[in-house]
């Protein structure tokens, strides 16, 4: 659970959860209930972008783009090793599993924000699978431990050769009928966890900016600046605790390893200039200032 090479990934995931939580909360604080529209649309759009990216990655690598590939070969995604899945069906056409442990939910629950989980689960994963399958698949979500009386989340993803044109089938499926495949490893090592979470954070922020602008106009993205600042403010005490647990000093080097944007924004994935500036001014500088004040 806590192998040394996994710890940084876990912390990066929590920093991402902090970002999501605070972006969503900043929308609700300014826009009230109506802001839920933006949250859902942005979460879905973020999923669509990630799904489209993975589709491109897998196509470029010459892989069959089916559910088996999606779940065994994340390229732009990094899977936190604390996730625990119990697989029921796994093959090119079906990915059916229960999520027993979800670090995103755990963090939101611990910090009193579990209500933000439902809109993330319902929208983000659906967006991913729809984009990855060219809208021919399904991503259904039956049970959720956010609800009283349920103790796991059940996902069922389906992608059928019969639901796509015959000419497209060879790019996705090895046969019309699927044989059960070896289930994904519980831990899929990620070559660049920091890069993966930085990208995910950038996708998330960009989608929130686009949806805020679409619904409320350009000036409305200021709310997200507050969300970025709040995320940075929450990140430092969280990492302080983590540094104590790991018996390491909380300093620039620690932040460089355990946060995805750190105190100096690199813009590795060519985030639009306005968005990059928002991250630098509101997140990175706040992180730096808070770090200085707690040392």
């Amino acid at each position, binding site marked *: 659970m806590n192998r040394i090479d996994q710890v940084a990934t876990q912390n990066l995931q929590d920093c991402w959860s902090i970002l999501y939580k605070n972006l969503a909360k900043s929308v609700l604080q300014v826009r009230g209930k109506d802001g839920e*529209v933006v949250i859902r649309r942005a979460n879905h759009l973020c999923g669509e972008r990630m799904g489209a990216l993975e589709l491109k990655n897998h196509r470029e690598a010459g892989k069959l783009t089916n559910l088996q590939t999606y779940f065994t070969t994340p390229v732009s995604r990094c899977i936190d090793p604390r996730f625990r899945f119990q697989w029921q069906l796994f093959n090119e056409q079906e990915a059916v599993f229960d999520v027993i442990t979800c670090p995103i939910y755990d963090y939101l629950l611990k910090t009193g924000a579990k209500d933000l989980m439902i809109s993330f689960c319902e929208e983000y994963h659906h967006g991913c699978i729809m984009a990855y399958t060219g809208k021919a698949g399904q991503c259904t979500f039956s049970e959720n431990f956010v609800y009283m009386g349920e103790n796991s989340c059940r996902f069922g993803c389906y992608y059928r050769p019969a639901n796509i044109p015959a000419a497209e089938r060879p790019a996705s499926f090895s046969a019309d009928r699927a044989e059960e495949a070896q289930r994904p490893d519980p831990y899929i090592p990620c070559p660049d966890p920091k890069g993966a979470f930085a990208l995910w954070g950038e996708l998330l922020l960009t989608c929130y900016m686009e949806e805020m602008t679409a619904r409320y106009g350009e000036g409305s993205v200021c709310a997200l600046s507050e969300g970025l600042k709040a995320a940075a403010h929450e990140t430092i005490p969280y990492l302080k605790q983590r540094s104590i647990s790991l018996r390491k000093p909380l300093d620039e080097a620690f932040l460089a390893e355990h946060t995805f944007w750190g105190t100096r924004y690199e813009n590795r994935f060519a985030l639009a200039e306005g968005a990059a500036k928002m991250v630098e001014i509101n997140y990175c500088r706040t992180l730096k200032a808070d770090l200085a004040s707690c040392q």
Partner: protein
Amino acid sequence: MENIYELYTPEQLEMIHNSDHYTMFYAILGQQLIDELGVEGESALREATRRYGKDRGAYRRQRHLDANVKINMKNLFSIGSDLPADPRFHGDQLRLIPEERNTHTLRCPMAELWIDEGYQYVGRLYCEEFHPACYSSYAFGYTKVGLAKTLTQKGDEYCAFNIVLRQEDLPEELKPVCFEHYDPYYTGQTKSIPKAEAKTGFNLLTLRVYYYMVEVVRERFGPEGIEALSHGLEKAAVYAADHLKLAAQAMNKPLDVAFADANYPLYWNPDEDPVWEQYNRHGAKELLKKEFYPVLRRELGL
């Protein structure tokens, strides 16, 4: 396996027979399309099942709108179901509110029959395509259908339905159509919507699911596809006759036209069935008269 003839009343048994024949009619025809036409046949079956689902969803929506009922999940699953109530069905309703319906189906006679008769794949296909199409269509395409656990899916012990209609997903003009709190002048339901009865209810379902199979098969395959459907109709007629005979024997009733009419979802005389007026295209009725009824009558000796 339980003996239904010891457990249920004659009226309930009629419901059960109609339900089982509807279930098997779909499965036999669907399997025939897959067996003869391969993945393209499966593709047609999936599309037909979706069209059928959309039709049922739109039909339920219109009935609710006509009765001034709000289009939401609570009403979809509590007012005027078009699925007759099979007494063998058991569910556990966890949450039923305008935005959400969460239930566990603990026993589904359709799933049991499909599995017992070797049609699990087609049954699973039905669950996968029908439910999203139907519930989504009901609420103008905005319903999210969570159905990742079904009795037709290998390893599952119940069906977990998580059907949600989020206010945030709706355009402004539909919010008052769907939720009372967006409609301050709402005066309530104006007329009752009766629940579907055994014969008429399952007749409407059987006829429509068949109609959409014919429609898609004609569109995609022409005569080759119709031939596959014809083979399926013949098999369905033999299955129907065999099971009507068993049912009459078990109920100690004469196997006559009245019995067949009461216990089978399609009308004994299709020309007396008013539903065909609405579904009178693609030669669906003529195909049934040509390929299904002669075999059924011959097998029953009626």
